[in-house]
């Protein structure tokens, strides 16, 4: 069973994605409320897909990528999607290097989530 890591500082939002992933996509889930927490989870291994909020208490997606590159470069290849409340200007080169395939604008529909997860799994 594929495992998705949900990184979001908003518990309600994280909870919704967890529900959809477990109940509708039949995936295992891991949760993290900050970059530091996420890095620890990734270090444990077994993550297939990462959904990442762009505004976390200890940094944004760029900061996450920088730390990941430093601490767990092998995890750079894990397909990732940014799920954000604010429309980002564009996907940066660092995002691409970090394995970020794109972004989803909150609130997104279940169909959009399904399609995005499938896209990520296909890139693995």
């Amino acid at each position, binding site marked *: 069973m594929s495992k998705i890591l949900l990184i979001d500082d908003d518990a309600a*939002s994280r909870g919704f994605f967890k529900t959809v992933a477990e109940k509708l996509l039949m995936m295992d889930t891991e949760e993290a409320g900050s970059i530091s927490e996420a890095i620890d989870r990734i270090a444990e291994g077994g993550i297939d897909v990462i959904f990442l909020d762009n505004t976390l208490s200890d940094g944004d997606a760029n900061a996450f990528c920088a730390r990941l590159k430093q601490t767990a470069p092998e995890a750079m290849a894990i397909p990732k999607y940014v799920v954000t*409340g604010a429309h980002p200007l564009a996907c940066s080169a660092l995002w691409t290097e970090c394995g970020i395939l794109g972004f989803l604008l909150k609130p997104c529909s279940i169909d959009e989530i399904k399609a995005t997860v499938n896209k990520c799994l296909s890139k693995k």
Partner: protein
Amino acid sequence: MLIKKIKEYLLPGNMSLRTKITIAALVYTALMLAVLTSMILHLQKENYRSRAIQSARQIAAEFSQSLFHKWDTTAPLSDNKEKLSQYTMLSNMAFRDQNIVYVAFQDADDKIAYIVKSLPQYVWMMNLTKTDPYTERMLRVTGETTRSFASYPEGLVTEYLNVVYDKDKKFLGVIKIGISEKQVQESIIAITRNTLVKIITVNLGALLLIGIIVYYMSTKLETRLIGIQKQARKMLDRTPDHQNTQNVFSQLTNELQEIEGIITSLKQRFMELVITISHEFRSPMQAIKGYSEFIMKGGAGPVTDEQMKYLDNISENAERFQTFIDNVLDLVKLGGDSFPLAKRNFRVEEIILKTVSLYAKQIQKADIKIEVKIPTPELNTFGDPDRTFQVLVNLLSNAIKFTPENGTICIGAQREDNTVIFHVKDTGAGIPLSKQGKLFTEFYQVPGIKPERGYKGLGIGLALCKKLVEIQGGAIAVESSPDTGTVVFFTLPAQQEKPV
């Protein structure tokens, strides 16, 4: 040099301005009056002489008439003749036929006497050695002695001839008349003196009046000029203040730069706040909308019709709230320095169907017919698909609000040259032409038109649409009438071969 000296003498440097102006005005006026007086006197003199000659000839004519023609001796001499006769005299006569004249004299004693007595002075030139019949007659009629008849009055006498004819126009001779130049001159001098006295009196009066007026006006002028001069001196005296002024300007410039910096910083903070708000509301909205959808899709078990109705209501209102917040935030962001756009070629049909799909339930619930018209399904346009979707969402949302039951909404797009024209048409109440001008203005709501369903909103949807279309290089317009409903068009560039 002379003029300069006269000027220095008349207008010394220490004299006040008002006095200088007054003197200059008086001198000028006096000169003008002198010229005028001289002209008047000359004309008067010429006029007097002319009248004297005329008068002399009149007397001669009357005298000849008294001799040879019937003449009313009782008639008084004219005024002119009376006034001037004192300088005029009968001086002599020369006739071809002395007998005729003699006879005439005999018949006209009383007339001659009348004429002669009317003249205060006359001279009858006579030959002292030879007595002629006229002279004898004149002596007898006038009662004068021979001596008094023999000389001219003192001074030059100008003589004029007056030709005498008889009743049959036959030349009889001439009567000489004389004008005493000396007396005329004396008289003219006397008249001139009188006239001059009058003119000088009037002129002095005029000069006095002019002097007073000019002095009064020049005093006011001088006061004003002195005021200006004082102000100018004050300004000149402030030379050291120029530096101060520069300092003030420099200070102001610095302060303005500081204010500009503060404004820029505030704008930056405001934009950051907007982004934060945008993010902060979207996360809980994800939970609200997401869980509603999850339950509606049966993720939490079977859903009853009643539960479905409530969930639908939650979802719809969450959607409305999200659209509203999105619009407000975007409107704010559009007023900033930059607005993120992800422009690319995208399929028109896809974005239109996505829009229709979003409102499919509402359209069905409102019992409205929807028509999608895209003549070329593969039609592509160049722009930001998310922002285009946002425009279409706003337009379709408006159309649903204002279309009555059984009405029709038509949404579509077609290519014309290098442009794709989108349209959203409804069969709603329509907007009168007079109220269409402000339609794309922020917070404008067409007065007197109520939506068929839902909320009227804040009047920011169309304003946002206009901005979103324009930043993508397009334009937006409306056609509407109360009979046919409303159609909103907007354009975007057609697909680009090599998007920049």
